[in-house]
């Protein structure tokens, strides 16, 4: 019961703030709603027992990536509103229609009836207990190569961002 109440409250807020992100007139408001949205997503993770991920969500997403967005929004202080000019070939209605179709599709798939718990994956014999320890153990054993690739990706992204954003090299 408590779990259900928690889920509905959190899910409700996630969706409300997501809608606000998309509909906000000013980009700064959008950013603020995005942060709040991410905090609720983190709460959802915590309720799912993924506390390490919840903290990472706050630390990296809410505290890091979105600050970057805010930074750019502040740098890009515009003389005319960005929405002033619309491409005459733009098909906004089609966009809504496509999105609705996709929602329908995903919804149908999702609610097709929950079959049965998939057979547990080859149980990862983690010699540790606890959420943080388990995630860490997996990251540094089975998923070491993807982990390294992810760090390479971040490094490349960092260099790329510097090259792009720097005025002159």
């Amino acid at each position, binding site marked *: 019961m408590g779990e259900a109440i928690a889920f509905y409250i959190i899910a409700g807020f996630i969706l409300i703030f997501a809608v606000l992100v998309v509909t906000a007139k000013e980009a700064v408001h959008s950013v603020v709603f995005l942060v709040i949205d991410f905090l609720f997503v983190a709460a959802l993770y915590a309720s799912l027992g993924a506390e390490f991920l919840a903290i990472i*969500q706050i630390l990296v997403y809410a505290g890091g990536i979105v600050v970057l*967005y805010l930074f750019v*929004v502040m740098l890009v202080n515009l003389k005319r509103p*960005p929405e002033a000019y619309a491409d005459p070939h733009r098909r906004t209605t089609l966009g809504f229609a496509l999105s609705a179709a996709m929602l329908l599709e995903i919804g149908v798939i999702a609610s097709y009836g929950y079959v049965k718990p*998939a057979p547990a994956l080859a149980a990862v014999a983690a010699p540790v207990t606890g959420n943080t320890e388990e995630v860490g153990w997996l990251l540094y054993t089975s998923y070491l190569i993807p982990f390294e690739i992810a760090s390479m990706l971040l490094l490349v992204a960092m260099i790329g961002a510097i090259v*792009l954003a720097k005025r002159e090299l």
Partner: protein
Amino acid sequence: MITPTHYMLLSAALFTIGVVGVMVRRNIIIIFMSIELILNAVNINLVAFSNQLQNAVGQVFAIFIIAVAAAEAAVGLGIILAFFRNKETVNIDEMNLMRW
């Protein structure tokens, strides 16, 4: 009783809101934020199933997705800044030239 279906429906709704944002908004920064919403929708799914299967692999993948999101944000915002510097706009409808 909250089943993975509930989480999947939440995820689908969040995903769709993100897609609507990408399709409808013209401010490229907001479009980027919509993409972040989409990535979060995926993460919710992964974590929900990770919880259902009692297996932390889903969370590991969610971490990878966060890493990718960070990389995407850095490069994407770099491109936005570089573009803004040249054309003084962040309207995606005006970004229709391959070079200037």
